[in-house]
């Protein structure tokens, strides 16, 4: 765990060194703040003290932001050759992948933490269902974990960051949109399976405050699948 943590901290530091972290925080807070408090279906439209509108906006902003964050994780290291440097140190492939995953997740968690004033504001307005808010944040965090896992997998496939971004977005779109759309058109077993694969249903029920173990398992398995794929891809380097 020590080395995984070392790699995670180094990655996190490089987000801040390269200004990536500041840009992400600025734009994420800007966009989600704008739509939560100012424009469209904002919190005031709900007529209730809840953060549902923020959650549904963050559901989309994170979907776009996470690939921009994960695209460089392995692709950039492969391009500059530092991946060779890292993989010849006394660390396992798993430690490298996990370290990068933790760094990305910590940055997203920090971004979500910065929205704490939203919560405090709502609390001062009226009675808030604290459980639902906690569930909503948990759902955002779990969804982010899934997309980070898939994003790291995409980044491990290429040494071109843009390609990594597009692959991650493509995989993400399938889960975010396509499966849900196809599921609503399909019937029977196919419809059910696709419906289960879609991100939307799991996120919605959880952000409403219902923690179902099936939803948690869904997010965690997507995360694990992405990370294991990335690890396999690193281990495969000798076999090409």
């Amino acid at each position, binding site marked *: 765990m*020590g*080395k995984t943590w*070392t*790699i995670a901290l*180094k990655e996190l*530091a*490089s987000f801040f*060194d*390269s200004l990536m972290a500041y840009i992400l925080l600025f734009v994420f807070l800007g966009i989600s703040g704008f739509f939560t408090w100012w424009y469209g279906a904002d919190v005031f439209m709900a007529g209730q003290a809840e953060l549902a509108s923020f959650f549904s906006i963050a559901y989309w902003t994170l979907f776009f932001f996470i690939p921009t964050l994960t695209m460089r994780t392995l692709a950039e290291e492969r391009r*500059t*050759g*530092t991946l*060779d*440097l*890292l*993989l*010849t*140190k*006394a*660390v*396992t492939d798993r430690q490298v992948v996990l370290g990068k995953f933790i760094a990305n997740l910590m940055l997203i968690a920090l971004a979500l933490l910065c929205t704490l004033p939203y919560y405090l504001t709502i609390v001062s307005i009226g009675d808030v269902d604290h459980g639902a808010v906690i569930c909503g944040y948990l759902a955002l965090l779990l969804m982010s974990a899934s997309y980070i896992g898939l994003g790291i997998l995409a980044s491990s496939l290429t040494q071109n960051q843009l390609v990594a971004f597009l692959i991650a977005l493509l995989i993400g779109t399938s889960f975010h949109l396509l499966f849900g759309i196809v599921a609503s058109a399909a019937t029977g077993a196919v419809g059910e399976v696709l419906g289960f694969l879609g991100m939307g249903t799991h996120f919605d029920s959880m952000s409403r405050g219902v923690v179902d173990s099936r939803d948690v398992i869904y997010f965690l398995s997507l995360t694990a699948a992405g990370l294991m794929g990335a690890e396999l891809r690193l281990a495969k*380097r*000798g*076999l090409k």
Partner: protein
Amino acid sequence: MDIRIENLSKHYGPQAAVDGIGFSVNTGEVLGFLGPNGAGKTTTMKMICGLVAPDQGTIRVGGHSVLKEPQIVRRHIGYLPENNPLYEDMPVLDHLRFSAKVQGVPEGRIQERIAEMVRVCGLDAEKHKRVGELSKGYRQRVGLAQAMVHDPEVLILDEPTTGLDPNQIVEIRELIKEVGRAKTVIFSTHILPEVEATCDRILIISKGRIVAHASPADLRRQAQGRAVLNVRVEEVDVSIVYSALAGLPGVDLVETLAQGGFILQCAPDMAVARSVSALCAERHWPLTELHSPGTRLEDIFRDLTLN
């Protein structure tokens, strides 16, 4: 720690990058790894570091198999990859600390090891800069420092002196020499005087195969089937000197140059030089030049790798 390599092969598609090579390096030895570009030097080094899996063959570092116990082996290896990739955003000291941590240097010793590396590699003036802001020479020193920060017993250096100016090359060479006294070092290069100055043994590979494996002196001796002697006799008629030289025992061939110069191809001992000087003394010819240029390592290298 020693390195033992047996029957190592690696193919990329139909092309053999490394084709059944085997050699060993003992503790305290510096092995110069030579070969034209694309001969398989980098691939071999990557396989020793466990970065590329061989198709065939075994690599043992200190008795541990690179394939079966990569984590143990990696802890004892310091690797400087080709082109010296480093994290450009990181300050030098942070980079060294990161390398030390992932290599498992105990927390209490990290500071001491970093200070040691800064001293040995002469990084003191630039240690607070980011890697990306350094000149090429300093970058190279950081590359060496990160490879050695965990005090590895084996050092694998892929072209450590490319792109450096002559002064820096000498510095790095001295550093390798000093480090090589206690450690096992393999380094690749195509600068030939470099291997002569630093290596105990030379391994030349070409098209994935070993074409020579000997000490620099032995390599020279092997190639000395045809010694050459430069002679210059002034103020005497060229044809008289020519026939006198050609008549000496042990001389195979005489070539004439301008202004009384001659090149003799002869047997590889100094007897011919002695008889040339005796001949000139006897006839009172002014002998102004008599020396053996020796066989240059460049010629040996070209000979071995071109056919």
